[in-house]
C-alpha cells in the first residue's frame, strides 16, 4: 500500500482536523460532514487520520472485521470459531457515487448461487467499513434512498439484510465522513441533522499557504518515505494524544452548569432538537479529553459550538446571515472570554 500523507503535514484546515480528531475520540458523535471545494484535502485528511489510528484486533479471515471479543455477534462466528485474533489497520472505505444498494449492504453471492446452488451472503461495503471509517465524497449527489439507509445503519450500528431469501444481521459501526459541495445541490435538513459535526473548508487564498501546500505535496510525490519520516515525530505525538484522550474520555466530568450552558446556547441560536445539544456536549467532552482536562470548561463548548450546531439552525430562506456568524454571536454573548 502507498504511504499515506501524514496527518500533521496537512497545511491549515484546522477546523476539519479538529472535527476528525473529535470523531475519532468519540465515535458516538455520529460522523462528520465536510462542505467545501474540490482539492481542499478532504479525503487526504480522512485517509491520513485512518492511517494514524493504532491497529485494531480482528478475527483472522473475517469478512466483517469481527471483533475477537464479540465474535458471536457476527454471522461468520461459526466458521471462524477457532480463528486467531490478528492486528489489522483501521479500515477506511470509499463509497463511490455509483454504488448500488447491493454493493453497500451486501447481497447474495451470485457466483456461488449460480455455480453450486449454495446460498451465501456476500458482505458489502458496510461490513468492510465496520469499526473504521466510511467516506462518501459528494454525498449530496448520492441517491436519496442510499443516504437514508446509510444514516440508518450508522445510527443503529447494525446492518440488517433481508432480501432474496436471505436474512443476515451484522454489526456495522463506522464513523461516517461525508463531503460535498453546496453549490451542487444541498442535503435535506433532516439528513444533515444526522451528521454529528459539520465543517466548512475553504481553498486557502493566501499565496504563501498555497505554495507551502504545493511544495509539501511535491516532496511527498517524489520521496514519500523520507517525507513521512520527517513528520514521524509529530504523527507519534498525535497518536499518543489520541490514545490518551480516548482513555480519559469516560472520566471527563460535565458539571450541571455546563449542561445548562449547552442548552442555553442551543436555544439562543435556535438549533432544533435534542440531538444538537447532545452532540455539542459530547464534542466538548472530547475536546476536554484531548486537552488533558478532567472536566468540561465553558471554552471547550465555545470551541466546538460552530462544528456541532452550524448545520442544525432553522434556515430562513430570506435571511443571508451565515449560520457560523449567528453561532459566534451567541457564543460571545453567553461565554465571556
Amino acid at each position, binding site marked *: 500500500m502507498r504511504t499515506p500523507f501524514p496527518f500533521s503535514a496537512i497545511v491549515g484546515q484546522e477546523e476539519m482536523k479538529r472535527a476528525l480528531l473529535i470523531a475519532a475520540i468519540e465515535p458516538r458523535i455520529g460522523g462528520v460532514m465536510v462542505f467545501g471545494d474540490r482539492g481542499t484535502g478532504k479525503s487526504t485528511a480522512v485517509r491520513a487520520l485512518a492511517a494514524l489510528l493504532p491497529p485494531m484486533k480482528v478475527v483472522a479471515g473475517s469478512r466483517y472485521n469481527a471483533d475477537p471479543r464479540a465474535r458471536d455477534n457476527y454471522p461468520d462466528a461459526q466458521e471462524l470459531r477457532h480463528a486467531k485474533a490478528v492486528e489489522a489497520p483501521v479500515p477506511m472505505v470509499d463509497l463511490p457515487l455509483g454504488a448500488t444498494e447491493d454493493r453497500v449492504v451486501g447481497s447474495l453471492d451470485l457466483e456461488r448461487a449460480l455455480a453450486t*446452488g449454495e446460498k451465501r451472503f456476500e458482505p458489502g461495503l458496510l461490513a468492510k467499513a465496520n469499526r473504521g471509517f466510511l467516506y462518501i465524497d459528494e454525498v449530496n449527489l448520492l441517491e436519496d434512498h442510499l443516504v437514508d439507509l446509510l444514516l440508518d445503519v450508522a445510527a443503529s450500528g447494525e446492518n440488517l439484510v433481508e432480501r432474496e431469501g436471505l436474512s443476515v444481521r451484522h454489526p456495522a459501526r463506522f464513523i461516517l465522513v461525508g463531503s460535498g459541495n453546496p453549490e451542487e445541490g444541498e442535503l435535506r435538513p433532516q439528513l444533515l441533522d444526522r451528521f454529528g459535526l459539520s465543517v466548512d473548508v475553504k481553498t486557502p487564498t493566501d499565496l504563501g499557504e498555497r505554495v507551502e501546500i504545493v*511544495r509539501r505535496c511535491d516532496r511527498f510525490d517524489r520521496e514519500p518515505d523520507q517525507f513521512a519520516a520527517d513528520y514521524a515525530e509529530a504523527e507519534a505525538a498525535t497518536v499518543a494524544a489520541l490514545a490518551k484522550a480516548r482513555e480519559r474520555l469516560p472520566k471527563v466530568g460535565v458539571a450541571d452548569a455546563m449542561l445548562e450552558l449547552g442548552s442555553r446556547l442551543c436555544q439562543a441560536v435556535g438549533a432544533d432538537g435534542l440531538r444538537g445539544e447532545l452532540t455539542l456536549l459530547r464534542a466538548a467532552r472530547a475536546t476536554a479529553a484531548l486537552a488533558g482536562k478532567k472536566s468540561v470548561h465553558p471554552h471547550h463548548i465555545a470551541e466546538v459550538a460552530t462544528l456541532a450546531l452550524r448545520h442544525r439552525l432553522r434556515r430562513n430562506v430570506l435571511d443571508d446571515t451565515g449560520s457560523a456568524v449567528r453561532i459566534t454571536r451567541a457564543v460571545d454573548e453567553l461565554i465571556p472570554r
Partner: protein
Amino acid sequence: MNAADLDIFGQMGYETSASMGRANGPLNQGEFHEKTDFCDLWDADSARWQLALLAIDLLVAAPQGLGGILLRARSGPVRDAWEAALVQALRCRRLQASADGDALDGGLDLTATLASGRPVRRDGLLADAAGGALVVPMAERLSPGVAARLAAAADAGGPALILFDEGDGDEGVTAALAGRLAMHVDLGAVRLPMADLLAEHPIGHSGDGRDPAALSCGGEKLDPGLRRDDRGGSLVDDDAAATLTATALALGIEVVTAPLQALRVARAHARVNGRTMLTSADLEAAAALVLGPRATRIPGNDAPPPPDEPPPPPPETDDGDDDREPDHDDLNAQTEILLEAAQTALPPGLLEALAAGQVRRQPTRGSGAGAKLRSQSHGRPAGVRAGTPGRGARLALIDTIKAAAPWQRLRQADPTGRLSIRRDDLRIRRYVARTQTTTVFAVDASGSAAIARLAEAKGAVELLLAQAYVKRSEVALVVFRGEAAEVLLPPTRSLARAKRSLAELAGGGGTPLAAGIDLAGAVAVREAARGRTPLVVVLTDGRANVDAAGRDPQEAALVSARGFAAAGLKSVFIDCGKRPRPEAAAIAHAMAARYVALPRLDARAVVAAVEAMG
C-alpha cells in the same frame, strides 16, 4: 475547475435555435476571425497540435501521478490523427459507450458461467489497461457511477485515462473527474493541413523519432518552450512551486491541485528532456498544458476583473521548513513568462465571454447524463421482468431460478442436482425512480412594472427551492427583456447558487416574448432529455413589443407559443398585467398552458399556482 465549466451555460447550451449553429462551428473564436493569413492560422493550430502531442510524450514518461489527458474535440480526422499517435506510444484500451461498472471492474461472465456450470470471471477494462491507457470516448455522457469509478481508479494509480470530451455548451466531463487529469488539451478548433490528412501518412509524433512536425508550415514559428527541446533555460527548481502557484492564482484558478499537477507535468517534461532539475522551459510547458486550459480569467485583460481578486502575492514565509522564497521581482518576471505560455492554451470562448462581461458559471453536474437509465438500476424496486442482465440491468436471482424450476425435468437435470438455467429464464429487476421535476420560470423583466414583478418572481423561486429539499425538484430561471432572453439560473437545487444568480437580475427594456418562450421551451426540452419532468411557468403581462427577427412581436409570440405546445410541455401562464388582456390569454391558449391571471402578483400565489399543477 476545468475549461468545460467555463462555457457560458446560458450562452452556448441554451441558445435559441436561430443562433445555435454559430456556436458549434470551428471558427467561433474571435482570434481566428481576424486572421486571414493561412500560415498564421496554421501557427495557432500547429501550436495546439504540438501541445497535444507533447501531452502524449509526457504521459509516456510519467504515467503515474498525471492521471491522464482530457482532450476536448469532436470526433473527426484531427482527433483520429491524435489517437493514432497515442496508440503508437501507449497500449490503449477503449471503453465502450454502453459500459457499466462491470465492464470496468470485471465480473461474472454469465453466459460462460451458465454454460460451464462453474463461475467464469472476465477481467475488467481497468485491470486490462493497467500500465497503459484507457480511452473514453464521449466522456461527457458518462453516467455518474462510471465517472466516480474512473475517478477512484485515477486516485489509486490505475491506467492513464484519456477522456474525449465532445460536449459543447452545458455538457462536459464531471468536474471531479476532469480535475484529476493533469493535462487538458483543446483540439476543437484545430485544422491540420489537408494534404497530410489525405496522404494518411502518420502525423509526426515527436516521441518516435520522426520529424516532430509533419505539418507543412508553421512548425518553425512555434514558441520554443512548447516543443521538445534541449534548451536548458535557467534553473528554476527551487522557485517552481511558488511560480506555478502564483501563475495559477493570476489565471483565477482556485483549486490548489492545479499548480501541483502543473509541477508534476513540469517534472515529466524535464525527464523527457533528460534533465533532473527543472528549467523555465519545463514550467512553460506545464503552464500551457495544465494552467492555461483551466484559466477563468486573463490577467492584464482590460475586461473588468471578477470581484474575487486574489490577494497581492505576499510570499510571506510561514512556519514552513525551507524559506528560500524568491524575491518579488524575480517571481513576477517568471510568472509573466508562464502567463504568456498559458495564453496559447486558454479555453476557447473565454476571451469572448470576458469581453462580453458575462459571469461564468459552473454547470451543475451530477445526476445529469444518463439519467434515463435510472429506471433500470436505481430507485425503489418495482418488480421483475424477463431480460438479460448487463447494460445496467441487474439479475433477479430468485425469480430466475423460479422461472427455471418447472422445466428441470424436461431439461433432464443432471444427477448432481444442479439447476439447468437457460437464457429464457433470466429475469432482471426493474426500478422506478421518483419523477423529479424541474420548474422553469420564464420571467418578463421588461419595462416599469419589472421591479415589483421581479421581486415576486425571485421570492417564488426561493420559496420553491426551499421546498425542493423534500421533493428533489429543481428550479431554473429564464429572463427576457430588451432584445433577447437568457438563462439566468440553470436548473439547480442549490439555494446558494440561486441566490447569487438572482442578485444579478435587473429589469427594464422591451418585451421579446417570443424569445422568452423559445428559450424556456429549449431549457424544458433539455430537462426532459435528462429524464426529468419539466414545468414551465411564464410570468408576463403578455404585451410583446420586440422581436429580434423583426417580425410582428405579438404574431411571433403566437408562433413560438404554438411551437412550444407542439413539444408537449406542461406549462402555466401567469398574466400579471394590471388588467388581464385577451392577447395574453390567446398566447396561453396557443401554448396549451394553464392560464392564471394574477394582477396582484405575489410570491406565494405563484407557488400555489405551480403546486396546483404538480
